[in-house]
């Protein structure tokens, strides 16, 4: 199944500033981003914690406490993980919108 990503303009700006902020850890950040992008495109990542229930967004860990927030075009609820977080299954999605990078730490 062919899958594609749309990187929002604001996500791009956030990403550029993150590379500035994480000076010295650029390779680590790039490697993790590559993993996420590859996983979403080739379908090897099909489940992720729900980010916001009303707008079908999910999130995946990036580096440190940072998470990448994205929205698949098709998703279903798929139980909970060990930490009790709701899990979303987006196996049938063909398009993913990259929306934001946020900090998960309380």
């Amino acid at each position: 199944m062919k899958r594609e990503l749309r990187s929002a303009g604001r996500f791009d700006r956030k990403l550029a500033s993150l590379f500035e902020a994480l000076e010295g850890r650029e390779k680590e950040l790039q490697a993790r981003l590559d993993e996420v992008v590859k996983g979403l495109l080739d379908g090897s990542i099909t489940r992720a914690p729900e980010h916001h229930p009303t707008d079908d967004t999910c999130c995946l860990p990036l580096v440190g406490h940072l998470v990448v927030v994205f929205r698949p075009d098709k998703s279903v609820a798929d139980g909970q993980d060990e930490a009790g977080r709701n899990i979303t299954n987006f196996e049938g999605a063909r398009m993913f919108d990259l929306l934001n990078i946020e900090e998960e730490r309380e």
Partner: protein
Amino acid sequence: MAREYARLRERNQVTLPASVVEQMGLNLGDIVEFSTNGKGGVQLHPAKIVKVGSAEARQEEKAAKQDIQEGKYTLIRSVGDFRKHVEKLRKGEAPSVAEPEAEHLTESQRHDVEAVVETTLMKLLSSLVEAPGSSHKHRHHEERAAQRRQVRSQAGESF
């Protein structure tokens, strides 16, 4: 609108006025974003990483969705595409632009469109190739038939 001034120093350094730093809520180590407005002016924004679940985070997500609705996004089809995209972003070279609608089609949809276009073109071409001869023949037959009808009717009248 309050105005403050600062002098450009060596290596393009400028000290932000304290009131600006305070108003923007900046702290040591924070990243700021400069964006040109195309008219010789520059806007300065704090480039903060917001907390999950905060009002700011919701606002940013909403704005990003709006970007996508308005076509302000970059389409990524492979990790290679993404790496090039990031490289450009880091050089400040990649403003996100809307791609033409055709670029949004999936591969199978593109194949379908190509098949329809090909079939339509083939039909059009074959009708163009056949049309001059066939219409000429058709006209010729009609003229001959009309002539025959005329001759018969004249002959009928004379009998």
